[in-house]
């Protein structure tokens, strides 16, 4: 499943007026109200969407809800899809927007993964000393601001400029958050 935006830049750049002709049949069917086709799209793309949600939100239950929100929103928006970009890219952007809206509305930044947490605070809630932590677990422990940028850049392949547009920060700010995230991850993984 090719969802990484950077990998599809060339496809986006070469979008032609007849791009709608390349829309896959299930997308066309679901846009026309075919729930059966929509369920097939869900089966195909759900793991990618859920992965984004769980890594961005760091909470399983909320990620399940967010994934459901994405597909409900997708059902609403599908008739608007014209095939100007790859469907997977379009869906991915929709999913990112849903997650970011959710984080903003629910004030996720104010929870225990607060964006302004210091590394020292992070260390206080670390896994038991000596326990091996994989990267997924370490990502979940990142402060929200650093986690968002890290997931969008290193996992999902967005550029700093795209991240800046999405998050309302500068590209330089995105770079700084990314470096901070990687350094925190290194320290967390080294424990």
């Amino acid at each position, binding site marked *: *499943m090719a969802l990484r935006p950077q990998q599809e830049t060339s496809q986006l750049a070469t979008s032609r007026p007849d791009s709608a002709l390349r829309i896959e049949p299930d997308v066309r069917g679901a846009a*026309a*109200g*075919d*729930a*059966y086709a929509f*369920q097939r799209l*869900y*089966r195909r793309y*759900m*793991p*990618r969407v*859920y*992965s984004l949600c*769980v*890594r961005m939100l760091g909470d*399983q239950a909320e*990620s*399940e809800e967010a*994934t*459901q929100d994405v*597909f*409900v929103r997708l*059902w*609403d928006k599908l*008739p608007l899809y014209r095939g100007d970009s790859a469907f997977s890219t379009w869906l991915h952007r929709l999913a990112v927007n849903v997650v970011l809206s959710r984080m903003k509305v629910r004030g996720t930044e104010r929870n225990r993964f607060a964006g302004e947490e210091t590394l020292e605070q992070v260390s206080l809630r670390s896994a038991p000393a000596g326990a091996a932590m994989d*990267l*997924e677990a370490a*990502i979940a422990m990142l402060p929200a601001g650093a986690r968002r940028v*890290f997931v969008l850049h*290193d*996992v999902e*392949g967005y550029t*700093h400029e795209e991240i800046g547009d999405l998050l309302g920060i500068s590209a330089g700010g995105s*770079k*700084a958050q*990314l*470096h901070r995230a*990687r*350094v925190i*991850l*290194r320290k967390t*993984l080294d424990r």
Partner: protein
Amino acid sequence: MTGERTKDCGRAEELLADWMEGESGPEFTALEAHLATCSSCSALAEDLRRIATTAASLPDITPPRDLWPEIAMRLTPRQAGYVAGAVLTRHSASHPVSSTRRFRIERWRAPLAAAAAVLVVATGALLVTRSGDNAPVPTAAAPSEAPAASGEAILASSQPVNSAQLLSQSYAAEIEALTTILANDRGILDTATVGVLRRNLEVIDAAIQESRQALEQDPASELLTEQLNVIYDMKLEMLRRTVILSSGA
């Protein structure tokens, strides 16, 4: 190569982020020279690069439960007009939909809505009754009444529909597996919980029956086929949750 930090190490760390982004220039040339002689900084650079590489190839994660039934529920009640409307509107331009078909679609929503409501209410009820003594549910105060009947009651009300031409083998197998687990766990669930389960499984089974009848009248309908599957999914989801809840009771 030295492992001791020098005054250049701080500057090197500041430049690493941009260097990893592919920036070039005299200061980055100096950084590369520093990395060649400083094991501490070169290890840092290597680790950060490894983290980025690993992150880019992380595998997808799948949720522990199927999210589709609840998505389908949210589509149908709130956007049923849209679901049907989309079909009807798009088809109406070139394939006018008969009033009979429209009636079938409208009529079909009722069992699905009932099953959907049951799934939501039943889960809430299960959570309440599971809380035992603290639960403000009068019937939950009799956990010892006929506990042996619990599993039987569940089994009796949730037998797979035997004539299910549209019931996939996977549905039948999973329903059977779950009801077997619940039968083996008899006595764990209290009477009130079993009562909730039985009543709601009856509603879901009635919804399945009604949807199947509608499908028999319109066997080519993908929409009806899909929605029958949705109701089966709901039944499975309820059984799955029951198994999970009973295992933690």
